[in-house]
């Protein structure tokens, strides 16, 4: 139908109002996220010599990143640490989420969640530093263990190693893992469990065949919420990692701030993002296939 353009009607339309509303935050995100990310990708193809940036397109950074064993080692170590942290954190978090969802009275649930999340809102920096204090050679953990006679000598491997990074990160991201799993478990219709029992399964089997599959979306969310930020963590490897526990973010910072090689830093950032994106995709697709395939365990 041909109608002349009615400005009043156009402005009243739902779609227009919606787009006007979303515009400010969206434009902000485009300016401060999309543009900078694009800049990073651009930078990775340039080179820098002290303070001057050479803008000619080159793949030399990428070549260096793939051939120098140091960078590959850092990337793979970051991946390993991050995956370990994710696995440990999510596995340890699941029973906690299960407990609050199934064993706590409804009116008390938010209280428990609140208690669990308080540590999360305190300064990350200070928490990591405290772990350095706790795990130190002459710190409280060793002191207690020696004092109780469990060991003769203080343990040296619990600090300034990849292990200390894993422990510290697992602590920091625990609440991130608990919450999504909790949300997922809450959504499960309780009568499904009763139906499972009614149809002849014992508790363990009901858990494996009913609860766990239905909680998978939450588990997946927890995995991603822990995995993605931990790969790029800077503070923890720096404070408690020592030389064996440095991760890719430390190298990125070094490139930018100490070596004045922003393009190299950009290259490593791009590679880190690609790695994260790829692994995340694998995890998502893997979970989708697992739940949709309907394979019984």
């Amino acid at each position, binding site marked *: *139908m041909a109608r002349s353009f009615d400005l*009043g*009607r156009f402005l*009243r339309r739902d779609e227009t109002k919606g787009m006007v509303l979303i515009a400010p935050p969206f434009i902000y995100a485009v300016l401060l996220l999309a543009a900078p990310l694009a800049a990073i990708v651009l930078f990775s193809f340039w080179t820098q010599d002290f303070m001057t940036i050479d803008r000619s397109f080159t793949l030399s950074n990428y070549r260096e990143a793939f051939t120098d064993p140091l960078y590959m080692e850092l990337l793979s170590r970051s991946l390993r640490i991050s995956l370990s942290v994710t696995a440990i954190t999510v596995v340890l978090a699941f029973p906690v989420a299960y407990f609050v969802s199934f064993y706590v009275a409804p009116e008390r649930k938010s209280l428990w969640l609140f208690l669990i999340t308080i540590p999360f809102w305190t300064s990350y920096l200070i928490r990591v530093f405290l772990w350095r204090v706790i795990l130190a050679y002459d710190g409280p953990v060793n002191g207690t263990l020696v004092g109780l006679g469990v060991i003769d000598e203080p343990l040296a491997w619990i600090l300034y190693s990849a292990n200390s990074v894993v422990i510290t990160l697992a602590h920091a991201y625990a609440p991130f893992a608990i919450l999504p799993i909790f949300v997922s478990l809450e959504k499960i219709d309780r009568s499904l469990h009763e139906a499972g029992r009614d149809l002849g399964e014992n508790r363990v089997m009901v858990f494996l065949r009913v609860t766990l599959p239905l909680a998978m979306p939450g588990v997946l969310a927890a995995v991603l919420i822990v995995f993605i930020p931990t790969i790029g963590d800077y503070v923890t490897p720096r404070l408690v990692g020592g030389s064996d526990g440095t991760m890719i973010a430390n190298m990125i910072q070094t490139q930018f701030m100490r070596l004045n090689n922003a393009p190299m830093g950009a290259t490593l950032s791009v590679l880190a993002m690609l790695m994260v994106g790829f692994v995340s995709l694998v995890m998502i697709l893997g979970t989708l296939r697992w739940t949709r395939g309907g394979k019984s365990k």
Partner: protein
Amino acid sequence: MTKQEPIIRLENVHKYYGDYHALRGITAEIGQGEFFSLLGPSGCGKTTLLRAIAGFEDISSGAIMLGGKNMEGVAPNHRPTNMVFQSYAIFPHLNVEQNVAFGLRKSGMSAADKTRAVGQALEMVGLGGYGARAAHALSGGQRQRVALARALILKPKVLLLDEPLSALDKKMREVMQVELIKLQREVGITFILVTHDQEEALVMSDRIAVMFEGEIAQLDDPERLYRRPVSRRVGEFIGMMNLLEGSLAHSGGYSVDIAGLGRADIAPEQVVGSGAAGAVSIGLRPETLSILFDDDPKSARTAQGVVDEVVYYGDMTYYDLRLDGAARPVRISMRNVVGRPVLEVGARARVSWDPRAFTVFT
């Protein structure tokens, strides 16, 4: 009584949602002080039409006239209508009095006047003294009354009600139906009600517009709608309609031969549709057949059959009777008169029938 200008005039109203043609040429007039219902199944466009009258939806073409003025481009807050929403939309952060007085903010009334008006409005809906109640402490029926008071206190020309009773349980619904009728009579303004419940529409309305797929199929008072549906679809939508097969003959006048009952002459206004002779469906309402008991006076037209099913309702009994020669059973409603037995399944029965009560669908 002088003929008044209709309060609402809908002139060929069309509405498109993208490609979807939601309202297809709605034309109707609604009078002052009328209790008018828009009745139809889900998706027929009745709520869309109501919201268009209220001003919450724009129309693609046609005109909506309220009180003689075209409402094109007039925002909802400037129309002489007020709406009772399906969810009642009681403001949870205000108490009952504040809710009811909400629309009076711009009226310039003094606080004392407002309190008085609120008190009167609450009395009118039967919630006198509830002013200080918190919103979340109200039951469903009470919320609805607050919504009514809140709308009526502004003395609109038209009150629009969007499925106001669908959220209530059966008993509450029946109570509120009567209350709404009384309220409308007391206040005297036009009510437009949207509902999918045909029983509700029949009970409360002065006139009903039955809508299917964005069009008005029939606009009539409840009795005409029930006795003289203009199509089989309308007939089946309103109340219970039995359908028997037969054939129509047209020579001079109309006559129809019905399987299971027999031949009869019928008046032209009983024939609906093309009027072509041949195979037809005959519609009969449950109360138009009567089971004959021994003490009943002789009847001119009778038929015989076997009782297929008996449904006992307390004051009524419904019999499904399989007439000799008819393919499907017909449902007959009988009042339970003292002393009269309830027939059993399998029993033979005689019925009397009157052709003046039938509708022939061609």
